[in-house]
């Protein structure tokens, strides 16, 4: 079957369960395509040889009751994988081989999936274009020299390019939803506390969440069901009853109330995005749901708040990279000199910039003016959401203020790069779940996404809305295989 890699996760699971395909067939097909796709630079490390061994082993004694029976998949290189190099896209972890497994990936392997390899990402997940990776740019399968978004850029590129049927990313300020939008796939950022952070290389601990990325909503729901679990090893993991998201998925959203926040109509937003949003509103109505104009008055303060909170937490989290216990070490004349050179040579420019911002806002004399102020504004942003959720069940917005941009276009202007996350960041600050679904194309044929934001722990509802809209939108991703010779 030559079209194995075109199949959705749901189809692959079905075909493996019906014995129409073996895990070995499927694994080989994705490896073959991954090997032909080096130009995308989606992988940092591959584990193809042992993937085939594991697939053969699965086929000898297949457990077809599992949720991901013999399904191969690659994951973002921010998840620690036992005995497989985990770099976080950084030189400073270039030689780091974890001796333990992240809970999220452990959950995935326990359901029968097989690791294909580790996917490229922005260094320590800090970036919106995958250009800050020590391992180079990732190409967007949509067009040559187009960024795939970031920080889960390799993940988005690998799903859109059919190098893996599904994947997981992490989202601190939009790092799942923005690349999903740029590559025409579905990406879910779960409620803070739904997926364990144990074994994920930390960026900003009060914002980081792992989440699924897939070709369609149903696949996304199934993978979310696998990765979401209570984990005592993560002190902020929340113990609540988790749904069987894929089983309970329904396109019946009649009577749901969907808020349309006026503050997301930002200055300079291209008409294409506004038109897409209007189309989305129409789809919602066609599904029998109701739209209500709402206001989230503090929206424009979300990004400045994020650029205090996230770097502050990052500067603390990244203090551990000192060249002593693991990772890269530079030679120094004494201990302090060794620390300073290790961090100067080991971290890239964007990571250093954010550590400097974070160090500054936490430093003596500035803490109240910046960090405390940001925590207060964060409260106001959360209050905005709490208020509107008294009236609506979910919120519909564009995922990004533009379609994917060219590689190099924004690298010299950090603020313009940061503005890319203007619609995604408020969700992380408020700890809410949100999903990006592909909803149309711009005049270049590049995909555009819509974002559905839910109440905390209401993933099922936004998955249902996404599922109903997906059916109406009937999106077809324009993948030409331009990178395959």
């Amino acid at each position: 079957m030559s079209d194995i890699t075109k199949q959705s996760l749901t189809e692959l699971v079905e075909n493996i369960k019906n014995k129409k395909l073996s895990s070995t067939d499927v694994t080989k097909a994705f490896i073959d395509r991954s090997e032909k796709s080096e130009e995308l630079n989606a992988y940092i490390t591959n584990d193809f040889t042992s993937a085939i061994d594991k697939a053969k082993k699965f086929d000898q004694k297949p457990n077809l009751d599992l949720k991901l029976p013999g399904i191969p998949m690659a994951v973002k290189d921010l998840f620690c994988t036992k005995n497989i190099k985990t770099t976080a896209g950084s030189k400073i972890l270039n030689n780091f081989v974890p001796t333990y497994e992240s809970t999220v990936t452990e959950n995935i392997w326990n359901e029968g999936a097989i690791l294909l390899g580790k996917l490229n990402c922005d260094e320590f997940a800090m970036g919106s274009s995958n250009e800050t990776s020590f391992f180079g740019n990732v190409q967007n399968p949509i067009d040559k020299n187009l960024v795939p978004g970031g920080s889960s850029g390799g993940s988005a590129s690998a799903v859109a390019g059919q190098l893996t049927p599904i994947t997981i990313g992490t989202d601190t300020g939009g790092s799942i939803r923005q690349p999903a939008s740029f590559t025409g796939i579905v990406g879910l950022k779960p409620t803070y506390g739904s997926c364990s952070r144990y074994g994920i290389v930390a960026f900003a601990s009060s914002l980081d969440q792992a989440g699924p990325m897939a070709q369609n909503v149903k696949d996304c729901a199934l993978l979310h069901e696998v990765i979401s679990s209570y984990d005592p090893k993560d002190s902020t993991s929340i113990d609540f009853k988790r749904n069987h998201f894929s089983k309970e998925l329904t396109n019946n959203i009649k009577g749901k109330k969907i808020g349309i926040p006026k503050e997301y109509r930002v200055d300079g937003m291209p008409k294409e995005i506004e038109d897409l949003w209007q189309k989305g509103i129409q789809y919602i109505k066609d599904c029998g749901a109701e739209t209500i104009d709402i206001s989230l008055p503090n929206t424009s303060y979300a990004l400045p708040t994020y650029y205090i909170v996230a770097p502050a937490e990052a500067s603390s989290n990244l203090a551990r990279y000192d060249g002593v216990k693991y990772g890269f070490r530079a030679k120094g004349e004494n201990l302090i000199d060794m620390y300073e050179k290790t961090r100067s040579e080991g971290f890239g420019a964007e990571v250093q910039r954010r550590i400097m911002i974070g160090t500054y806002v936490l430093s003596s004399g500035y803490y109240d003016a910046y960090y405390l102020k940001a925590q207060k504004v964060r409260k106001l942003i959360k209050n905005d959401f709490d208020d509107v959720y008294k009236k609506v069940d979910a919120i519909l917005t564009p995922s990004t203020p533009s379609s994917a941009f060219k590689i190099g276009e924004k690298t010299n202007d950090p603020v313009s790069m940061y503005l890319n996350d203007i619609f995604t960041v408020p969700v992380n600050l408020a700890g809410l779940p949100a999903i990006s679904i592909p909803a149309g194309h711009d005049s270049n044929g590049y995909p555009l996404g819509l974002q559905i934001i839910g109440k905390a722990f209401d993933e099922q509802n936004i998955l249902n809305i996404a599922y109903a809209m997906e059916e109406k939108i009937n999106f077809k991703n324009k993948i030409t295989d331009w990178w395959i010779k």
Partner: protein
Amino acid sequence: MSIDLKTIKHISKLARISVDEERAEKLAGDLNSIFDFIEKLNELKTDNVEPLTSIAETTLKLRSDEVKSKNIREQIIKNSPQDNEDYFVVPKVIE
């Protein structure tokens, strides 16, 4: 507000990242444009707002104080850039 080179040098010391003159100037430019953007927060009055310190509205769970990983010295040392079997090795600290 303006972040000068002296401040950059000070922050880089605190952050333990060595920065040469050229990098310091570039960083000063970047940080100034980022902080110009952050200053927008001053438009908001927040005197009576409680800071949000935790997004997960739960209290930390208690657990019994048990050792769960035993004899993992080898695993811990495994990734160290320089070791002599049982210890992490760093440049000499005491003269």
